[in-house]
């Protein structure tokens, strides 16, 4: 990427982060959702200090969720700052993580056809249109892990969205998808986007090889990401994906 493109990315990200940070600052307050009171902060705490030996379903069944994405917001909540400032920091941080892959995808989907100014307009409009959603903006204003869990998926799409296909790109995209699935199981629904990558026209042998590479990379991405939590679930329940597939593992009810 050229220096001008880096500068553009920086500016687009900064403007978007400032816009999202302005929402809680304007409201003058942030808030705790049902889920935050119930399990977000607790999961953030156990992600750095496991409490299996102390507590018994202190956050009910939600305490079994993958906890590590809640660590930043737990730490944020411990800072001696007011809610509006915390909300602004949190929103800006999430935007800083979400916009770069979205902008990179725009760069690849919208190759420059005329003047540089036109290309910048199109990319900026694409990013702004992506963020212009009530659901997205609400998610950026809560402690839920959905925006963070979306980051690897966006990178996966940005990486694979290029005219030239390669096994390496496919493997990276698949590994990131596996990571996203470990973060949140609902990322399984993004599988068709990966299959599209696999189906791109090429000889059957190469297709088969790419398919195997993607399966291995996705499994690796999932396993490495889930391992720290899966190991604790395994030690505690005899099932690394507890409470899912519990009958299959034949562990204690």
């Amino acid at each position, binding site marked *: 990427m050229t220096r001008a493109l880096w500068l553009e990315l920086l500016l687009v990200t900064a403007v978007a982060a400032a816009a999202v940070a302005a929402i809680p600052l304007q*409201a*003058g*307050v942030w*808030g*705790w959702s*049902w889920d*935050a*009171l*119930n399990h977000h*902060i*607790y999961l953030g705490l156990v992600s750095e200090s496991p409490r299996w030996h102390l507590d*018994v*379903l*202190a*956050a*009910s*069944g939600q305490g079994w969720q993958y906890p590590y994405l809640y660590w930043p917001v737990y730490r*944020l909540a411990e*800072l*001696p*700052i*007011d*809610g509006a400032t*915390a909300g602004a920091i949190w929103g800006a941080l999430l935007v800083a993580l*979400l916009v770069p892959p*979205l902008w990179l*995808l725009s760069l690849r*989907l919208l190759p420059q*056809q005329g003047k540089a100014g036109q290309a910048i*307009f*199109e990319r900026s*409009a*694409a*990013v702004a*249109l*992506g*963020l*212009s*959603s009530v659901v*997205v903006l*609400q998610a950026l204003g*809560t402690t839920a892990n*959905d925006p963070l*869990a*979306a980051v690897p*998926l*966006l990178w996966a*799409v940005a990486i694979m969205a290029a005219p030239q296909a390669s096994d390496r790109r496919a493997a990276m995209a698949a590994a990131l998808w596996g990571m996203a699935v470990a973060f*949140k199981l*609902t990322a399984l*629904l*993004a599988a*068709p*986007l*990966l*299959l*599209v990558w696999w*189906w791109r026209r090429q000889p059957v042998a190469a297709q088969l090889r790419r398919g195997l590479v993607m399966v291995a990379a996705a499994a690796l991405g999932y396993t490495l990401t889930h391992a720290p939590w899966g190991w604790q679930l395994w030690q505690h329940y005899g099932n690394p994906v507890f409470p899912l597939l519990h009958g299959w593992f034949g562990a*204690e*009810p």
Partner: protein
Amino acid sequence: MIRFVPDHWADGLLRPLLLVDPVAGLYIELQAPDGRFAALSLLLLLVLALGLAGRRRRDLLEPWQWLLLLGFAACFYAWTFVSGNGRYFIWGLLLVGPLVVMVARQLKATLALRNTVILGLLGLQLWLVSMTFEANSWSLRPWTRGPGIALANTPLKDQPAVFVTIGTITHSILVPQLHPASRWTNVGGQHEFVPGTLEHRRFSELMASPLPKYAVVRASRLAMTPDQQPVEHAWVVIRRALGRSGLALQAPECTFVPSDMGGSRINFVSGPARDSGFWFCPILVTGQATAEPRDAPTAPDLDDVFAKIEQRCPRIFPQGNAQTRPNDEGVGRSYNHSDVGVVVNSLGYVYFKHMRALNPTVLGHVDEVRAGRFEIDCERIPGRYLPPWARH
């Protein structure tokens, strides 16, 4: 759970267009109209219609861009028919922005017109957002001053104890505020400790701990006496929740600890912020649960009545999803799969109600339902999303 899954295949197929509908409960609990998916679909049709006259399809977009659109459409419909919950499609809600611009710039028109279309769509979408967006919509408790998880100073913080939170919300947000060696659990909430399970054994071991034990209850100022104790009805609820788990209050008073986290959104802007908090009530273990286990049958003579309804609409009332429980009106089954409850009231009338519906829908007298003489439109349950053409 089918909260946002379309009730009809056509509703699902048209979901890209229906997302513009500014009603709550379509793909998220809030009002969140979204015109981008409709714009993408219509632009695609327009580009194809205008473009194919003079060009081949591959000249409009690169093959990999077509594949990306195809993959995105597959993901969209997989999401729609499996979950439909917008919170689980954040990545798709973000990706649609660049895709709309990608298709819009293929319009067979002047650059100025294409830019106008792009800016117009952005403006339209921002208008839709501004109509319905409200900051902190999900918030139950305010975070005004810092830090966020502030509990006023109390001697309870100085030594380890066993804390038993009561209620559907576990308030485990309090855990970092008390002594790090304290132990926590929750009763009367979402999870019941069923004898014979690992968690029940661990719960029993926890209750055998020599540490002092406290029930932790949210102290809303609306349920508080002037001397900051629970009102009489709150005492009843606390005793009942503890009794079900073989616990009882040890003293006639609780310690009130102020905290914004016990407050409500009403305190957001002004008003006394420290008048809500949490009660810490000393408890002891009686070892005798006062209530029957939840799997004990309630009103088994009505099982066939519920079965009739479940057989008629298995998607809304799936068998095995709910058990009969007593309630204020009579007995009922609450199907969390679909957010719908069925009640047989004390007068013998059967009705159902979705959590978002204002009024219940009466099916008939219990004898009529038992005989199968009732009507219900399984695809149009009041309270669930109805497309504009299905509304009365």
